[in-house]
């Protein structure tokens, strides 16, 4: 038994064991979640140390090497996402322990929340470690079904409609991805990403497969024009679920896109498709930001902000391809997008948790009701402000590091358009986040009902996440070096 095998087994199975235990023992959810957090965090720490000291880890499941078996690969990228997920899930589950507490008799939502949340975690870890496109499909389906269920957990008419809409997009996305995987296997006799890298050419089958996989994953990442499902779904769920759905779930499909384009099929990327992906991302950024400006409910603002922020994750494609192919700046684009994905995961989860605490205090999330909430929830508003700094991309946050890397790549590659879009994204984020913040710091109305108290301990969780997103910027050197471990060649040389 090696330490790396133990670490991988803990990361893969602890959340799944936890979910099954929570399914069996209805009222023990919070305790089981705590045990899961400890076990998964332990595995994650061991894995991070191993990756940092010995480099990327490779494990053939069952001892069967590719192409027969499924390979697990834990490089810096995987380690970064797994660690961020552990941090975010830990904070979310800590906040969820009260609204979804066990109680004397079993309640519906308190029963189903815990196994669903832990399955979501298990699915994410399975995706981040997998090196096989079909195994990724199964992991992605697990993630999607759980996410849809969490959207509908409130059982109201609007949330059920939101869950159904999400389901319809997700079903189509799954089919597209599956079609692509089937064509790739038919052509190359493997779905192992490393082997595919040696075999994928530019035959018609490969092109159709790449288009189908990209389209399917884009639908699941809510890239424009597949974004319509996201805002109602993410804003309608209970806050801890929203935090997972917005902060973590779309990152999984984006992560698979990265693995596919940078590792399985880097030679297939033509400048047309890269520009298209970047352009759709830019459109999503503008569209999501403008709609976020027009919302009067806090959770909807945060949800539309996700559409925008996911949009400029896709800038990685034009920046890593086309003209910049010959330059080392592709590495900047690649690292920048990953920094953005990780810091957005922390900041967005923090914001939704803050929104949840505000709803607990005032009973709703309509903006006017938030006036002066800073007096009742100082820590929460502080956390919200810190998370906002990350989303705007202001120094010294992780969001700033992300933008700095991507903008440098953009100028170096002679594509200043993307840098301008990044600046615009920051300005728009500042505009749509200004309103809730200004209201929170305003003087409360005299006739406003007194907000309910929320314990300090629970306010600490979103604050910790927001601080982590800031620290990612202040201490960016170590995470930057870490995600480079086992970095794919295309991240340096560029796509195409």
């Amino acid at each position, binding site marked *: 038994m090696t330490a790396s095998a133990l670490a991988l087994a803990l990361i893969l*199975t602890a959340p799944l064991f936890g979910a*099954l235990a929570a*399914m069996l023992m209805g009222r023990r959810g919070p305790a089981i979640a705590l045990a899961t957090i400890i076990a998964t965090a332990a595995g994650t720490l061991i894995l991070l140390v191993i990756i940092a000291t010995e480099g990327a880890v490779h494990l053939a499941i069952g001892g069967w090497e590719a192409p*027969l078996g499924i390979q697990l690969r834990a490089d810096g990228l995987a380690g970064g996402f797994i660690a961020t997920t552990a941090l975010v899930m830990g904070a979310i589950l800590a906040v969820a322990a009260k609204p979804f507490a066990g109680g004397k008799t079993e309640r519906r939502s308190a029963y189903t929340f815990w196994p669903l949340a832990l399955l979501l975690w298990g699915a994410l870890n399975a995706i981040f470690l997998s090196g096989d496109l079909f195994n990724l499909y*199964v992991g992605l389906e697990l993630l999607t079904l759980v996410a849809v269920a969490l959207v509908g957990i409130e059982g109201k008419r609007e949330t059920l409609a939101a869950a159904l809409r999400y389901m319809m997009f997700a079903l189509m996305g799954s089919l597209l991805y599956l079609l692509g995987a089937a064509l790739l296997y038919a052509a190359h006799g493997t779905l192992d990403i490393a082997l595919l890298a040696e075999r994928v050419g530019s035959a018609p089958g490969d092109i159709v497969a790449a288009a189908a996989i990209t389209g399917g994953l884009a639908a699941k990442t809510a890239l424009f024009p597949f974004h319509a499902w996201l805002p109602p779904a993410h804003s309608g769920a209970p806050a801890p679920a929203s935090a997972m759905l917005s902060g973590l779930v779309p990152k999984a499909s984006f992560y698979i896109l990265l693995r596919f384009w940078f590792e399985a099929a880097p030679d297939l990327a033509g400048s047309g498709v890269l520009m298209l992906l970047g352009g759709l991302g830019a459109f999503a950024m503008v569209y999501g930001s403008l709609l976020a400006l027009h919302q009067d409910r806090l959770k909807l603002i945060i949800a539309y902000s996700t559409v925008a922020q996911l949009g400029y994750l896709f800038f990685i494609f034009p920046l890593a391809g086309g003209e910049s192919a010959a330059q080392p700046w592709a590495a900047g684009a690649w690292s920048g997008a990953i920094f953005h994905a990780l810091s957005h995961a922390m900041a967005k989860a923090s914001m939704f948790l803050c929104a949840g605490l505000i709803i607990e205090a005032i009973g709703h999330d309509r903006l006017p009701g938030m006036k002066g909430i800073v007096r009742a929830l100082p820590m929460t508003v502080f956390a919200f402000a810190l998370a906002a700094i990350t989303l705007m991309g202001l120094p010294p946050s992780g969001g700033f590091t992300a933008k700095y890397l991507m903008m440098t790549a953009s100028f170096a590659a002679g594509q200043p358009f993307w840098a301008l879009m990044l600046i615009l994204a920051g300005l728009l984020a500042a505009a749509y986040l200004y309103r809730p913040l200004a209201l929170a710091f305003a003087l409360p109305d005299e006739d406003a009902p007194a907000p309910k108290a929320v314990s300090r301990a629970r306010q600490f969780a979103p604050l910790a996440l927001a601080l982590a997103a800031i620290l990612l910027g202040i201490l960016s050197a170590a995470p930057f070096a870490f995600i480079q471990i086992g970095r794919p060649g295309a991240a340096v040389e560029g796509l195409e």
Partner: protein
Amino acid sequence: MIASIFDLTLCLVILAAAGAATLGRDAFMAVVFYIVYGILIAMAWLRLGAIDVALAEAAIGAGLTGVLLLAALARVARKAGKEPASAASVPATTIATALAALVITIGIAYAFLTLPEPQGLQGHVAENLAASGAENPVTAVLLNFRGWDTLLESIVLLAALLGIWTLAQDEAWGGRAGLRHVTRPGSVLAQFGRILPPIGLLVGVYLVWAGSKQPGGAFQGGTVLAAVWIVTIMAGLMQAPRVADRALRAALVIGPVIFLALAVAGIFAGAFLVLPPAHAGWLILAVEAVLTLSIAATLAMLVFGPPEPEEKR
């Protein structure tokens, strides 16, 4: 193998059934055609030498999916209280969609026609079959070479069930799952319900037992067992279980739990999910046995639906 007249006819009938299922006006008839379509697809799988897939398609693709669709139609008709909106009737959209679908079909067909020489994994599977613990190559892939897929897949089923339970009304929580028996004593279904269970049990257990050597396995066997349970309840011989029932929940999770435990134990034998060749045979059979139980329970509960309030009987 050269296509025979039978293959050509089968493909045409498949397309006709699929056309009736997707394009037909009446929703109930569409589902009926879908079930026919599923059985025809199962025949296609037999022609393609994939007996395991044929069994899975017939049992799960046609059978269970058909039952789920029929049950959903009945429930929606009861609850929606009106004939819901039918297909879009804007000709321009319809024509544009049809054209787009045609272009996509041609693109996929072209990609298929231009596929390079096949380089399947038959050789790899055959070489390692002896060490896998299963004689049926498909079972060897499902339970050993790609066991991690299968383990995750058994959990996907549970995720769907949790999602369905989440849709229960709060006041109904803990009660019996939605399906009520629908027959009067002495009716055909009630008779059927008495005769079927012993036969079905036998078939289900056989499919699992045979699965390691011949086509069949946990998913096919589990589906047959689930069908037995469903018919027994529909015939009024048993009541659907309560969702809070400890025994039910244990049955639901035991398969994935044992499979996961085996996966973790594998790290002491070298890597995650390693089955030592000397023990792989009985380990696979044991995992299949508990998985079958869990799959049967989960599939049946998927059909029963969320618990419903008691007074609405």
